[in-house]
């Protein structure tokens, strides 16, 4: 229904705006408009609302004097983070062990079954040692910590703590040239970077929004928490013998990772706002909502169902075929070495410079679509090559790593690399969609990758220089 009226309308729209701009005279008309609206709404409220006791209104904000105070704000934040990690690690330990034993027990029956029907060895290898074992590992390692971490985090969120975190961080972000709301989008990144990229829409200025997008990768998301938690609890407890001490050390290492992520976020924001994204931070209002008692069971159920199972399903869906492929690659031999070993050997020299090995680098490359699958791919790569370990306890997962020459440095650098390296495929696609710029999408992968390479290289070289490993 092309009508001349519409076409004519298009031209006159511009002249309309020009006319309007002339009328407005470039003055502060926005303030006048807002003033008009506010006048009406305060008039209505004066008329329709009565307060029994004005003092009672402010009672919910008493807590804020403490949790957002200059002295206590940061210590309380760190303490809460520490407690969340502590609960996660301490609580996940036993269920992980139980699950691993359970799957090991089932595997015995599967193997017996395959032998009973005289199935060929390769079939047993592909299905049981590749597919089943890989999937079982993913479930027993990833499920318990997620079932604890995500609900606890969701409870804090529903209680209303996140805006207080943003409030505390606001000054730091402002100093680094970013927007205070970057603290909110960062907090969202703890759940999912891809979603956090969308949440940067709450930042008005394009410059500050870009800063928030570029740095969001530096907070670990759902997909990376399991890797960080597992490696920290296996390798970082060091000499600490007793259970409580081990848990405490692991929790502090995880906290250290988060802090490193935040420091990198602030540094990158600062550098970018002094160079490519120059500008002055804009003002904004941050609302501190009243604290609300979370609906505890509902929150736990929803976050378990939505988050934990989601992440796990994604990990399994990708890990299962990857398990088969890695097993096959690990069992086809060319010149006395498996194809998988050839591939890992290709990356090895480079990886050793970074304090890691070829398998780890391969896992990160293959893990681009989703961070959840980095650890499963790595484990399957290790398990399909060389001696097969008995899978019935969590300790044996550490043995697999140790057999492949892991030290605390390998674990630390893998954690650092996981924290800093490029965002996952979905996040990158979202960045492209949101910024509509290939340049920024590429930069948001290249900048973190560069930082990850420099940091792991420096750590590895320093540790070797001082003879710490």
């Amino acid at each position: 229904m092309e009508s001349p009226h519409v076409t004519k309308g298009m031209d006159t729209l511009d002249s309309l705006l020009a006319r309007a701009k002339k009328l407005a005279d470039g003055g502060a008309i926005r303030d006048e408009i807002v003033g008009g609206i506010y006048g009406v709404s305060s008039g209505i409220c004066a008329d329709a609302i009565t307060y029994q006791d004005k003092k009672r209104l402010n009672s919910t904000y008493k807590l804020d004097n403490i949790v957002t105070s200059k002295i206590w704000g940061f210590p309380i934040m760190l303490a809460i983070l520490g407690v969340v990690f502590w609960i996660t690690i301490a609580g996940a330990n036993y269920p992980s062990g139980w699950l691993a034993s359970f799957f090991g027990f089932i595997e015995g029956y599967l193997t017996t079954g395959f032998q009973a029907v005289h199935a060929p060895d390769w079939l047993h290898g592909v299905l049981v040692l590749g597919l089943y074992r890989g999937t079982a590992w993913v479930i027993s390692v990833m499920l318990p910590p997620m079932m604890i971490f995500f609900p606890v985090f969701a409870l804090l969120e529903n209680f209303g703590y996140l805006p207080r975190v943003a409030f505390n961080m606001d000054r730091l972000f402002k100093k680094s040239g970013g927007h205070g709301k970057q603290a909110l989008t960062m907090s969202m990144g703890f759940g999912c970077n891809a979603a956090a990229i969308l949440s940067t829409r709450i930042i008005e200025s394009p410059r500050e929004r870009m800063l928030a997008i570029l740095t969001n990768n530096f907070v670990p998301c759902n997909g990376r928490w399991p890797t960080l938690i597992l490696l920290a609890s296996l390798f970082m407890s060091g000499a600490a013998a007793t259970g409580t001490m081990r848990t405490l050390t692991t929790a502090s290492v995880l906290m250290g990772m988060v802090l490193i992520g935040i420091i990198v976020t602030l540094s990158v924001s600062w550098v970018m706002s002094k160079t490519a994204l120059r500008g002055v931070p804009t003002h904004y209002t941050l609302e501190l909502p009243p604290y609300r008692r979370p609906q505890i069971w509902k929150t736990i159920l929803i976050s378990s169902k939505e988050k934990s199972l989601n992440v796990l399903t994604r990990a399994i869906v990708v890990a299962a075929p990857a398990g088969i492929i890695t097993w096959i690659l690990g069992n086809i031999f060319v010149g006395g070495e498996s194809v998988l070993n050839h591939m890992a050997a290709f990356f090895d020299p480079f990886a050793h410079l970074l304090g890691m090995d070829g398998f780890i680098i391969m896992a990160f490359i293959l893990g681009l679509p989703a961070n959840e699958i980095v650890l499963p791919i790595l484990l399957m790569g290790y398990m399909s090559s060389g001696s097969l370990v008995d899978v019935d306890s969590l300790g044996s997962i550490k043995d697999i790593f140790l057999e492949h020459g892991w030290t605390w440095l390998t674990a630390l650098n893998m954690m650092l690399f996981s924290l800093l390296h490029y965002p996952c495929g979905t996040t990158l696609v979202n960045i492209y969609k949101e910024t509509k710029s290939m340049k920024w999408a590429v930069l948001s992968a290249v900048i973190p990758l560069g930082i990850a390479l420099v940091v792991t290289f420096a750590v590895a070289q320093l540790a070797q220089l001082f003879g710490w490993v």
Partner: protein
Amino acid sequence: MSQYTVAFAGNPNTGKSTLFNLLTGMRQHTGNWAGKTVISAEGEFTHKDHQYLAVDLPGTYSLYSNSADEEAARDYIIFEQPDVTLVVLDATSLERNLNLALQVLEITGRTVICINLIDEARRLGIDINLKKISKRLGVPVVAISARNKIGIEALLDQVELVATSVVTAPPLRITYNDEIERGIAELTPMVEQTIGSMYPARWIALRLLDGDDSLLTSLKANMNSKGKALPGTKEVLGHGVTACH
């Protein structure tokens, strides 16, 4: 059976998504902080004899196109013209929340005001006279508590009345200062002549006075697509819920 569209608007963190989940049985993430919902979600619910399509808009403090989410909410209300716009307000900070309600009401009178968290307000000793507010705004005002499921039936009854046009109201007219009013008076006839009666002329004149370029861009885009499309077909918005991990 026809389906009515209900858009959920409101300030951030007023419990829009909680209400949305309750009505549609969906599981949009909710959280006690501003800016949790960034993508509009859609869901369906039934009340009495009618079916409704609920659209959860991003929470915003205004419709002045300060940011992408404010533009998204504004464009939906103007261009998609939902049968009912449900403005969800936080009973514990009504004065600030009303500002958005007034801005919506300037655009459309097909509005129901929903004052959420009424139980919390009562606990804090805040008495709200719904009748007075309703009289001033000219549209139904209902107090509810989404999380404790108080007042939901009464709310849906009012939504039905507005959806079926039993209750109708013209857009609310807010009187600004003389300078603005003169500008509006001069622009409104021109606006009406240019874009017809499809959109609220007074409100668009006001936005033009404010120099709102983004509204103009949206207007052009919509007039283009509406010009080609058959009357009555609505433009499909990309309400993609992005995969998360």
